[in-house]
């Protein structure tokens, strides 16, 4: 009886220990996966590079991963990146020119961990019909937003065609939103711009597409436009809250998948961000190539075409006196955030 009691007691202890261990282990897994912080701040705008974040918020992919995302709007990438390194934002997408410029300033407070899209056909130079090729731009006025991807495109295209900015072509520093009016009034002969104004200008009478980003020298070699979008995270945040970062990345790329698979459904929520009509929104979505999480692992490696292309872009900015020194881009790339 005593022996029987001892065996039962032994078995119960073993069962109890196993159950405790398993529960503990499960809790540990849960604790590991649970975001340390339930709300993050994302810096965006109505630019297409921010569609995944918006779709993620509106269609619940972040929520599914236990995360609330606050979408903070900024007019320009520089303001957004400034806020990121100042600690007001946790994640953002930025034009790579702004990202490279911030790297060149020596600021180490952020990681670049992805590039979500390619939009080579919705940015370019729209010109008057009589301007048939780039050399026809000689002696003409070309509107472009300085310090933008379109500016880089213009500098590259002029160089490719042996033209000098200022001497051969007058560059007028204009915001994209002001270009259609300037073009219509005849104050400029051509405009370098991006969607949605790019599409609007193309539809204007007397306008035609002179070229798009596919003519950019780095695009020909690396498939890289003059200002690819870059996903960035605040270093301090990503290091301190790895689970939250993981949840954000997961929710973000689930939204990218939605954009790839259900563009029409996504367009319905995106019009609230962009104020475009449904038709315009669908047209813009058609021109974007989305890169999913699987593709990121391939793109963000060093050496790899994207990182190498970004380095070339940094060198290009130095050559054209936009920044003083080219940063080593790979020092900011952290593809571990994608795991």
């Amino acid at each position: 009886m005593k022996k029987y009691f001892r065996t039962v007691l032994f078995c119960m202890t073993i069962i109890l220990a196993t159950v405790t261990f398993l529960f503990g282990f499960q809790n540990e897994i849960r604790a590991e996966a649970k975001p340390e912080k339930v709300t993050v701040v994302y810096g965006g705008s109505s630019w297409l590079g921010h569609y995944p974040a918006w779709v993620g918020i509106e269609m619940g992919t972040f929520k599914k991963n236990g995360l609330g995302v606050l979408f903070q709007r900024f007019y320009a990438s520089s303001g957004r990146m400034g806020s990121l390194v100042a600690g007001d934002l946790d994640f953002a997408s930025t034009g790579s020119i702004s990202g490279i410029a911030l790297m060149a300033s020596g600021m180490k407070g952020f990681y670049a961990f992805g590039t979500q899209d390619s939009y080579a056909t919705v940015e370019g130079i729209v010109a008057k019909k009589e301007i048939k090729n780039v050399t026809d731009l000689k002696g003409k006025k070309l509107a472009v937003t300085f310090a933008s991807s379109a500016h880089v495109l213009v500098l590259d295209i002029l160089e490719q065609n042996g033209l000098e900015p200022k001497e051969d072509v007058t560059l007028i520093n204009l915001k994209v939103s002001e270009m259609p009016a300037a073009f219509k009034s005849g104050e400029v002969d051509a405009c370098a711009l991006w969607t949605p104004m790019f599409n609007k200008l193309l539809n204007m009478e007397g306008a035609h597409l002179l070229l798009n980003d596919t003519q950019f020298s780095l695009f020909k070699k690396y498939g890289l436009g003059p200002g690819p979008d870059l996903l960035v995270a605040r270093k301090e945040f990503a290091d301190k809250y790895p689970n939250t970062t993981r949840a954000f990345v997961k929710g973000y790329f689930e939204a990218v998948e939605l954009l790839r698979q259900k563009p029409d459904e996504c367009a319905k929520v995106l019009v609230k961000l962009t104020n475009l009509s449904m038709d315009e929104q669908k047209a813009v979505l058609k021109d974007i190539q989305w890169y999913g999480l699987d593709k990121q692992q391939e793109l963000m490696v060093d050496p790899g075409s994207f990182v190498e292309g970004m380095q070339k872009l940094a060198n290009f900015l130095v050559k054209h006196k936009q920044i003083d020194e080219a940063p080593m881009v790979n020092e900011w790339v952290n593809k571990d955030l994608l795991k």
Partner: protein
Amino acid sequence: MTYAYLSVGSFLLVMLIWEGFCRLGFIEPIFLPAPSLILLRALKMADQGTLFVHVLASARRVMVGFLLSSLIAIPFGIFLGSSRFFKAVFDPLISLLRPLPSMSWIPISLLWLGITETQKYSIVFMGSFAPSLLYIIEATRNIDPILIRAAQNLGASRWDVMREVILPGAMPQIIAGLKVMLGIAWTCIISAELVAAEEGLGFLIMNAKEYFQTDTIFLGMLLISLTVIIIDVTFRMIEGKILPWTRN
């Protein structure tokens, strides 16, 4: 002389503390660059020949806009200051114009004047005109009415009263007001150079902002201040010459 040493000393002390603060790594250069970095940037730009291009472009825009505004505001302000009837007529319009920041004129000026230099002058003009006008009206109205009545009793005509009493009496305050207005005109340069500018201190600052070149931003700000100081000193010298009774 002692006060001059005090000013120079305090300035150097602030620069020294600032430099030390930055060199000890208390703050990243992107947030606050050391004065030596700003100086280096200035030397580099001077060497490239771009520094003075920016200063001259902005100085031209400010001076043209400001002079045009003064040329209209001075006679108009004196006229309104000496006539209650016309002041009452124009008061509502001036009150509407006065609070408008120079930046609010950008869309309208672009529509009316296009992407031209005139558009930039107009931004400075509109930003400084209404405040200048108010200053001048007040300066004119501050003339002691007893002086005006005394002159009239002595048989002075309206033109005589204007020439002998109002103008000499109001001019020191008008000049003082214009000096303040010149500073305000310089604040308009950022707005004026926001659109279609390829040179100028406003452009320099805004373009540097896009590339996170904080040293260039500080340099642009410093150059605006220095230019205003130089113009202010020049103004004082002219003031001393044309209004000798204000020297003391």
